[in-house]
């Protein structure tokens, strides 16, 4: 039997997303952000989405478009200072926002992808963000319990894929993308280039293709 291809057009890939889904989106400060996939998601008008991402781009730029278009119900992330629309929407009671320290946010996604339901960390212990979280003492210090994060769909960006879905990234655009690829039921990778299997040195693969469900050739 010939192998099933993961390479598909963007609308076909994005059609996996339903109203109310939890969606992880890669990127940090607009780098490594899958802009084509976001634009396609905006075009679907899917509603009540929970977006799990480091930040929300800038007002009406990158992930900011989803908020401007009224598609967001909840945000889980850590740094919305670059998009003041988020504070406005939260203060107006239009969306729920959960802040998690950036390192815990990254680790929760990593844990979610490798079957660890929760872990302890020092970050946020005793602070407002640690309020209500279970604590335990290790070596004389109080740690908080952080739960893993998982999602229905992950939208990620990589520099290059082979036709199987092995991925390599570009510089600081890597950020949250590799961990998010592991933590969703369905991962869509927007890539700049698609090469035949065998054309990426196996030693340099960052995301093995087991974590990738759909490959979309990006234009942005």
């Amino acid at each position, binding site marked *: 039997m010939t192998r099933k291809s993961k390479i598909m057009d963007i609308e076909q890939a994005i059609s996996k997303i339903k109203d109310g889904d939890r969606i992880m989106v890669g990127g*940090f*400060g*607009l*780098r*490594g952000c899958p802009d084509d996939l976001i634009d396609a998601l905006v075009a679907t008008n899917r509603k009540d989405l929970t977006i799990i991402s*480091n*930040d929300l781009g800038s007002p009406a730029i990158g992930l900011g478009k989803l908020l401007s278009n009224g598609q967001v119900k909840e945000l889980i992330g*850590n*740094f*919305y*200072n*670059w998009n*003041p629309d*988020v*504070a*406005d929407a*939260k203060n107006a009671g239009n969306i729920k*926002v959960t*802040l*998690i*320290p*950036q*390192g*815990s946010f*990254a*680790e929760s*996604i*990593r844990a979610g992808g490798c079957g660890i339901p929760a872990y302890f*960390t*020092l*970050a*946020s*212990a*005793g*602070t*407002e*963000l640690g309020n209500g979280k279970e604590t335990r003492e290790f070596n004389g210090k109080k740690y908080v319990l952080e739960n893993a994060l998982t999602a229905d769909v992950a939208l990620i960006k990589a*520099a290059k894929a082979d036709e199987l879905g092995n991925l390599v*990234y*570009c*510089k*600081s*655009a*890597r*950020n*949250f*993308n*590799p*961990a998010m690829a592991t933590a969703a039921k369905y991962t869509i990778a927007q890539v700049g280039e698609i090469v035949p299997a065998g054309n990426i040195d196996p030693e340099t693969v*960052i995301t093995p293709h087991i974590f990738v469900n759909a490959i979309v050739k990006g234009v942005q």
Partner: protein
Amino acid sequence: MVNLTKDEVSARIAKNIASLFNEAEDITFINLGVGIPTQVSNYINNDNVFIQAENGMLGVGPIAEGNDIHPELINAGRQPVKETPGCSYMDSSTSFGMIRGGHIDATVIGAFEVDQCGNVSNWIIPGGKMLGVGGAMDLVVGANKVIIAMTHTSKGKPKLIKECILPVTGYGEVDVVVTELGMFFFEDGRVILKKIAPEIDIDYLRTVTGFEFEVSHELNIMEP
């Protein structure tokens, strides 16, 4: 009184923090926060020092300009930066593993307030437009030393105070505070002034500092 422009204040703070690293004889890894901390790299002249950015880079180079700007390469403050020979990239969870795992020797961060117990508030002003914590809470508990770079006062009010009023980022984590007026070291529950600005005396410094501090027997003058 000290009459320095905003740029002169930033430069003085950054220069004096860099002096803490310029004598390092061992390989030293530091993480620099947004704002004045980023400027510290301008004054580091020690090949033993490597800069980590929490968005996934070890060996961060200087700010990139013009043709040197790469569209996918920024530091954690979203500024385009250059690579250094031997630099590497890693994903965010590995980057914070470095931080949380105690592999980063020092973090330099800004602050709204620091109190006499070494507590620091730097992540949110309630009711404001800024809604974010970033990596601050991970950095203050993970890095081996926490160095605060901040102006001594804000709108004439001390930022070094008895007890933090704003939401705290980390408790008892501060090791050094460097302002344009002095360098304060937090050691075993004591706050010790080790360097003072060239223009002022200790009596003046006490009038603009919100907590009591000891003065080192070997008090030095800050780099101007």
